[in-house]
């Protein structure tokens, strides 16, 4: 077994190492995300043909579906980090879990709004209390609950622990969102892209979608790392490494 992987992970668990690592990775992740999003949107909005049923309105898919994937993916990442934080009391894991929530909430919000903007011309309504839409709205409320609970404690680590429990309890909603289109009769269309079996989509429409998926994943990394850095400055403020940072030898504290 490659021994350096756990060793590397172990070192990343140290706040100053993670702070520096995040600072080095963030601009590259963000830059690549912007480039990929530009390419994906060009391909999706201008190159791909119009849908035979939905015309040009279907192009909202290139924003809506990657955002929806991220709303669930970030929840998964947050749940793993929350579990690690609760079981092994690793501070970085707690911070990663707590700082994932606002990014997840942002993507969930985008999913709901773009879905609404897609639903109005296609279904004739901005909103309906259907299984997929309702469970995604519940997901947004869970994200907001996690953020609120985290900030309602005087002691940050206590807040992180309480909110991490909420993250694990709320995880039951993730499969409900995902399978809602199969379990219930809903207005929402079924999955277009599948991991198993053939996707119901043309290549010219698929590649912008997958490129956007990569862009949003990279964006999550960039946003999460910026948030973790901001959080560590406050929560590690009394530690020597932050004081050294403030003394500004590497110019990183500007």
């Amino acid at each position, binding site marked *: 077994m490659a021994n350096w992987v756990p060793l590397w992970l172990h070192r990343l668990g140290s706040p100053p190492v993670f702070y520096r690592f995040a600072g080095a990775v963030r601009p590259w992740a963000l830059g690549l995300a912007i480039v990929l999003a530009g390419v994906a949107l060009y391909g999706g909005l201008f190159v791909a043909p119009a849908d035979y049923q939905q*015309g040009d309105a279907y192009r909202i898919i290139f*924003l809506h579906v990657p955002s929806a994937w991220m709303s669930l993916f970030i929840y998964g990442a947050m749940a793993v980090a929350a579990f690690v934080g609760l079981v092994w009391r690793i501070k970085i894991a707690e911070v990663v879990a707590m700082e994932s929530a606002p990014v997840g909430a942002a993507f969930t919000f*985008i999913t709901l709004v773009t879905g609404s903007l897609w639903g109005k011309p296609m279904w004739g309504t901005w909103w309906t209390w259907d299984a997929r839409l309702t469970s995604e709205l519940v997901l947004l409320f869970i994200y907001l609950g996690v953020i609120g609970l985290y900030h309602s404690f005087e002691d940050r680590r206590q807040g992180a622990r309480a909110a991490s429990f909420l993250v694990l309890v709320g995880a039951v909603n993730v499969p409900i969102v995902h399978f809602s289109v199969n379990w219930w009769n809903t207005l929402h269309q079924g999955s277009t892209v599948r991991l198993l079996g053939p996707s119901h989509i043309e290549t010219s429409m698929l590649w912008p979608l997958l490129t956007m998926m990569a862009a949003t994943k990279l964006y999550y990394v960039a946003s999460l790392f910026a948030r973790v850095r901001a959080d560590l400055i406050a929560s590690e403020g009394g530690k020597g490494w932050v004081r050294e940072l403030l003394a500004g030898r590497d110019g990183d504290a500007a």
Partner: protein
Amino acid sequence: MNASLAMGAYGFYVWSSVAVFFIVLLIDTLAPLARRRRNLRELRARIARQENRRRPGTPPSNESNA
């Protein structure tokens, strides 16, 4: 080009979606950068206050009251 920008009859919905996507993510990008700067500024002020509390002439007590 104008025809493709119009998105059939759906220009409003498509471009509103694009706008929402980028505005929300722009706010999400800028907020933590501002928060990090604010945290650094507050920490600097706190350290300065601690320094001031020490009387001139006494040796610094090696980063105690953290």
